[in-house]
């Protein structure tokens, strides 16, 4: 059966990871190099492995063109993968599947270092898997955890006050006289990821501290769609003031981009930006030291 396809600069191969979970590994023209990390591209919400607006495919092929193996797959119950029979809750199940995928890829590529890329729920799953498995040397989180800071509220209020028509509404909200609008549910046929609340901020901060201690490199990207929680470039640092990220953290703030990256220039910024970050941070043999 034909499970490999070659394109001009990369090739792709169907690589299942057991329990019916489906994935596609994208390989550089010269094949995998064991001393370079492999990038796992995780599901975003309920979107299947090609990613919102096919960005996961573009990212995988771009990374492979730059010499890195990239793997995209469907978690249980998403895309082409069957529902889980593990009995684990969704979060624990996804971490377990990421760990399993890394083991399969370790056998396939010879590399035992991994970078986890995730948008939205994928950013959360990647974070938890990085904490659980020391083979993870880097994470990319697009619209991951966000906690409002003093400066966030200040900026939000100032931006609203710029439009004087909103002053009565802002004051009304502050005084509790006006309730925020309740967003209507979508139609009954629609299925979206159920989003639990973020974990407590101190728990996430402690997690980042552990990752930094291990030397895990972090790329955090926020889009304008997260403006209700994240509204300025350096907010990430202010959310975790007790964590010394040193030179391990790289931030990208795209205030005009939408969460699912429908605009071609935003797709390019994320795909090129992540690829450049991987190439810069993870050269042959690097990425293990703190």
């Amino acid at each position, binding site marked *: *059966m*034909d*499970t*490999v*396809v*070659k*394109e001009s600069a990369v090739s*792709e191969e*169907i690589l*299942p990871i057991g329990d*019916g979970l*489906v994935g*596609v590994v994208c390989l550089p023209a010269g094949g995998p190099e064991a001393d370079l990390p492999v990038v796992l591209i995780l599901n*975003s*919400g*309920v*979107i*299947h*492995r*090609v990613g*919102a*607006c*096919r960005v996961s*495919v573009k990212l995988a092929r771009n990374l492979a063109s730059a010499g890195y193996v990239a793997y995209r797959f469907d978690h249980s119950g*998403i*895309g*082409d993968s069957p529902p889980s029979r593990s009995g684990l809750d969704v979060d624990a199940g996804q971490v377990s599947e990421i760990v399993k995928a890394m083991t399969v890829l370790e056998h396939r590529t010879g590399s035992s270092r991994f970078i986890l890329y995730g948008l*939205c729920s994928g950013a959360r799953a990647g974070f938890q898997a990085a904490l659980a498995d020391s083979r993870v040397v880097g994470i990319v989180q697009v619209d991951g955890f966000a906690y409002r800071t003093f400066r966030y509220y200040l900026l939000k209020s100032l931006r609203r006050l710029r439009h004087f028509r909103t002053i009565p509404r802002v004051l009304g909200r502050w005084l509790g006289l006006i309730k925020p609008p309740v967003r209507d549910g*979508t*139609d*009954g*046929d*629609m*299925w*979206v*990821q159920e989003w639990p609340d973020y974990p407590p901020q101190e728990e996430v901060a402690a997690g980042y501290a552990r990752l930094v201690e291990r030397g895990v490199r972090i790329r955090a990207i926020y889009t304008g*769609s997260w403006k209700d929680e994240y509204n300025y470039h350096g907010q990430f640092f202010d959310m975790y003031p007790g964590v010394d990220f040193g030179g391990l953290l790289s931030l990208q703030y795209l205030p005009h981009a*939408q*969460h*699912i*990256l*429908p*605009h*071609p220039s935003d*797709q390019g910024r994320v795909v090129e930006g992540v690829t450049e970050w991987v190439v810069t941070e993870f050269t042959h043999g690097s990425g293990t030291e703190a």
Partner: protein
Amino acid sequence: MEFFYFGPGHLFGSITPPLARGTPSAAVVLCYPFGQEYMRAHRAYRQLATLISRMAGPVLRFDYFGTGDSPGEGEEVTLQRWVEDTGVAIDEVRQRSGLDRVRMAGLRLGAVAAALASEGRDDVERMVLWDPVIRGRAFLDELDKEGVTPVGSTWWVNGFPASERLRREVDEVDLCRLTVPAATQVVQVISHRNVEFERFSQAMEARSVRGETRLIPSSPNWNYSDDVGGILLPREMIRGVVDALVA
């Protein structure tokens, strides 16, 4: 479920094997819609494949060139290539299953690919057109309403490119002019009523094409792009498409 690449274009495909006892009478090919509609419909198609496989033959789903996990860029997508790819998919499922009859279903622009690919063939015994794009011009108007970002001559709609050539090809589509093979039954399954579906029903009736139109009220909002990547699983409609296909 088996996954593989097939045909000269190395298209990504999957086959859901039949679970029903006995030898099935026909294999099934499902044709995906375009762009954001493809994203929103992917899981629904998986459900379709699973349900169909319980009652009928093997089900092939595949990504056209330039879409999903298949090779190529979105900017290279053309309707002509979609139709050719669909023909290759029909041949593939026949060859893999050993069956010489095929049933097909397609949503929106996928219905167009299925319908145009069936022209001139004598092996398609039934075609289910799910909320089909009847008149390409109307579809382009819908895309335009969604909000187009032009990049050169390419339109970007909800995150997916539609080249000038693709738009020109779609603009020429009018399914009422479809040449339906004598062996093919056409079932139009619609989520709502509109003049285009009615026009298609009348055109098929006027030409004595075997088939019918079934209304199953459900969400028609395939091209809507929410900010969190929601997908659609219209259960009644999925069941209706299965019924129409395996009847």
